[in-house]
């Protein structure tokens, strides 16, 4: 059997807007990926632990609360301390341009803002997951 891309989709923090992440999760499923969806209100610890146990290649985090500058770094740090920094970290939501630059420096691989076509996200994941 071929290797399938496994991706964790989660909403860290406290906002409850999950329409976007569900659309993306569905699109990735339809692109043939195994999408582990963990739902709302996840702590960074829960997200990193789930990513490890599920042995995902990538994660997609949706944040619309404005807490991205606190949550992303915490998740990146936890991945590092668990020797799991090979997991590709991507995100989406309402994130200002200047923060995107900052987040990329910290190790977030890509941020997909509102209006991004799902085909672009699929292509990015497929091209950037290490095999």
């Amino acid at each position, binding site marked *: *059997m071929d290797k399938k891309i*496994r991706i964790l989709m989660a909403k860290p923090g406290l906002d409850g807007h999950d329409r976007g992440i569900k659309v993306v999760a569905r699109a*990735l*499923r339809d692109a043939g990926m195994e*999408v582990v969806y963990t*739902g709302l209100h996840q*702590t960074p610890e*829960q997200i990193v632990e789930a990513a490890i146990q*599920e*042995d995902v290649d990538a994660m997609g985090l949706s944040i619309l609360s404005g807490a991205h500058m606190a949550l992303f770094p915490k998740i990146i740090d936890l991945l590092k301390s668990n020797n799991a920094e090979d997991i590709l970290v991507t995100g989406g939501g309402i994130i200002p341009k200047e923060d995107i630059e900052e987040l990329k420096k910290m190790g977030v691989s890509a941020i997909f803002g509102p209006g991004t076509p799902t085909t672009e996200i699929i292509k990015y994941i497929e091209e950037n997951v290490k095999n």
Partner: protein
Amino acid sequence: MSDSAELVKRLLKGDRRAAAKLITLVENDNNGQSAKIMHLLHPHTKKAYIVGVTGAPGSGKSTLTDRLTHELRTKEKTVGVIAVDPTSPFTGGALLGDRIRMKESCTDKGVFIRSMGTRGSLGGLSRATNNAIRILDAFGKDFILVETVGAGQSEVDIVNSAYTSIVILVPGMGDDIQAIKAGILEIGDIFVVNKADRDGADRTVMELEMMLELNPKKNVWRPPIIKTIASRGEGVEELLSCIEKHRSYLESNNLLEKRQDCRNESELMDVLSYRINKYLLDDLKQSGSYTDLLKKICEQKIDIYTAADEILKILWKKS
């Protein structure tokens, strides 16, 4: 590959990342890696107690599995959870959503949860599920809870993998004829009527009672029926005590060994038929005689059974 041997070593030392990677390897099963991994792990297995959880989609399998995990943790047992969800037969993708209901156990180091897609299997588990069970067994988990895909009526593979099978029903799923049809209702060692605060719960219990009463095989073990409200944790303690009762019933009657034997045999048959399919039939499909016979069938010259006989003759000669 020495890679998998290294991972096995790390697994036996309790490294959860190694456990996760090994499950991925047996799922993908490239270059026969499963065979090598299972060979290395075999001496370290047969310690865990395997419980199957099955039932219709939305009946509360994940929530109940989560609550049961909690209950086991309060008794200081370590728990492995394998949750299977369906893979799309059209795209090969899957949305694995069982973890949504398992948030609390997520960061507990005594719990390891893994979601799996069925990847083409039809019996409610995936082909790699049994290997994943053995990996978590070798990882040292006391209990392994296996949650099947949302089962309809005939997804009964779990009965070959688990020592205790729990079948979950919810009120209002049909009349009493549903209860005497063949299928998943025949495999329950324990029945759970979940969402018991809903109308019709007592009626569902009664219909199950009648079904069990009509069972001609009057075994010593009569499957108990437990009412639960999994979302509030009600009835879960009783469920666990029933699991323990069933376990001691199996152990004191030498039935656990029997179930283990059945499990081994069914896995052996699985591996064998997979390999026969893969090697013999793949080989055959490449050969000219297969295409010739197929062509003859299409031209109405011979029938399918005669062609199959011809093919079998060719296969016997080869071996």
